[in-house]
C-alpha cells in the first residue's frame, strides 16, 4: 500500500522536475533582451491604466459557496457508495437508501432555495 502511494510522490516530483528542467534548458538557450515596453502589461496596444487587482463580481464567491456544500456532500456519499452493495445483500439496503435520499434531499432543498432567491442567475434581478 505504501509502495503504491509512493508512486504519487514520485509523479509529483517528476512533474515539478520536468517543468523545472525544461525551463532551465530554455534559460540557457533562449535570448534575454528585456525592455520596458516589452515588460509592460498587455492591454491591446493601449498603455494600461491601473492595476488589475480590483474588486470582482460577488457571483464568483456565491458559486464557490454553493460548490463547497455540494462537493462535501459528494465526499460524504463516497464511503456509502463503496459498501452499498453489501448493505443490500444483508437486507439493510432500504434503510440506507432512505438515508441517502434524505441527505441528498436536504441539500437539494438548499439548491432550490438559492434558485428561488435568484442566486443562480448570473445577473440577479433586484426587486424594486
Amino acid at each position, binding site marked *: 500500500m505504501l509502495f503504491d502511494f509512493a508512486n504519487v510522490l*514520485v509523479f509529483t516530483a517528476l512533474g515539478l522536475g520536468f517543468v523545472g528542467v525544461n525551463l532551465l534548458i530554455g534559460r540557457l538557450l533562449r535570448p534575454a533582451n528585456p525592455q520596458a515596453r516589452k515588460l509592460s502589461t498587455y492591454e491591446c496596444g493601449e498603455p494600461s491604466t491601473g492595476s488589475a487587482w480590483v474588486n470582482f463580481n460577488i457571483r464568483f464567491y456565491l458559486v*464557490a459557496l454553493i460548490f463547497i456544500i*455540494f462537493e462535501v456532500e459528494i465526499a460524504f456519499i463516497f464511503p456509502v457508495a463503496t459498501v452499498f452493495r453489501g448493505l443490500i445483500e444483508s437486507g439493510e439496503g432500504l434503510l440506507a437508501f432512505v438515508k441517502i435520499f434524505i441527505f441528498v434531499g436536504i441539500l437539494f432543498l438548499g439548491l432550490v432555495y438559492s434558485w428561488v432567491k435568484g442566486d*443562480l442567475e448570473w445577473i440577479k434581478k433586484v426587486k424594486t
Partner: protein
Amino acid sequence: MQAYLDQLIQGGAFAGMPREVVYAIGMLLAAFIVLSAFVAPLAGVTSWLERRVWARMQSRVGPNRVGPQGILQWLADGIKNLLKEDIIPTAADKKLFSLAPYIVFMGFLCAFVVIPFGGHLIVADLNIGILYILAVTSLVVVGILMAGWASNNKWSLLGGMRSAAQIISYEIPAGVSVLMIVFLAGTLSMQGIIKGQGWAPWDWYLFHNPFTFAGFFLYFTAALAEGNRTPFDIPEAESELVAGYVTEYSGMRFLFFFFAEWGNLYVIGAVATTLFLGGWQVPPLAIFENSPMLLAVAQFVTFFLKAYLWVFVAMWIRATLPRVRVDQLMSLCWKYMVPLSFICLLGTVAFMFVPADGQRITSAAMFGLGVAITIIFFLRVGFQIRQAKPELYFKPHI
C-alpha cells in the same frame, strides 16, 4: 510493479543495494517512461491531430510540412517555444506567475498514476483511484486561478475567475456521475471498476440502466467544461479575452498550460472509458490464453482506442459548436445538469434493488420506453412543424 521488483531482488539482480533504493529507482524509471514515452508524445500528437482535424472540417490543409503529413509538428513547436524569449511583466507577481505552470502540469501528470493501460499495465492501482483522479485534476484550477491573478492583467484576471467558477461548478455533475458508477462497482479502484464490467457492450456500465446512460453524457459534458474545451472555453475566449489566463505567458511557460490541456483530453477519455465503456476488457479468445504478451497488447490497444475516440469527439465538438455565454454556462450547470445528475444518482441506487436476474430485462424495458418516448417526441415535433409551415412561409419572423 512491487511484485516484479521483489522478484528481481530475490533473483539477486541488485545485490548489495537496500530494498528502498531499488524501489525508488524502479518507481522513478516507471514514472519517467510513462511521461516521456506516453504522455509527452500523446499530448504532442493530439495537438497536431487536433489542428489537422479542424482543418479537414473547415476545408483547409492544416500543418503538413514537418515530417510525413506534419506529424512531427509538435516537436518543432516545442523547440520553437524552448528558444523563445521568456517575458514576465514588471507589474506581475513574479513568484506566483512562475509557480502557476508547475501546479497545472503537476495536477495533470499525477492523474496518470492510476490510469490503466491494460490488465496489468498500471503504475499503481490505488484503492482510492477514482477519488484520487477527481482530487488531483482539481489542482489544475488552482494553477489557472494563480496564473490569472498573478499576471496583473485584466484579461487574465477575468479568464482566471471565469475558469475557476466554471471548473468548480461542473465538478458537481462530474462527481455525481462518477458516484453512480462507484455505487454499482462497490469499489473506488480503477481496475476494480473495469473488472466489474465485461468485454461486450451490454456488460458495460453505460448500458447497465438508463440512468447510467444519461450519466455518461453528463460526465462527458461536465468533463469538457472542466478541461476548458469548446463550447465551454470562455476562460480563453480568443474573441473577447485575448487569450484569457495565458495572455501574459510566453515561451515554455505558455507551452506547459497547453501541454496540460491536450493531455487532459486523454485523461477525460480514459476516465470515461474506465467508468462506462468497459476499459481494457477484451473477448476471451483462445489465442490470448497461450500468450500473455498478445493479451497485454490487445488490452492496451482496446483501452487506447476507446479513450482516444472521446478525444476525437472533443475535437469534433470544438470544430462544430459555437461558444456559450457565461450566464448560459452557469444556468446549464446549476439548473439542468446538477438536478439531472442527482436524479440519475438516486435512480441508479434504486435500480440496484432490482434482483440480479431481473436487472437486464428491466433495463431493456426502460430503454425501450425511453426510445419510444423519443420517437413520439420527434414525430410530434415534425407534425407541429408541418402544421406551422404555411404560417412560417407567410410570416417569416415567427
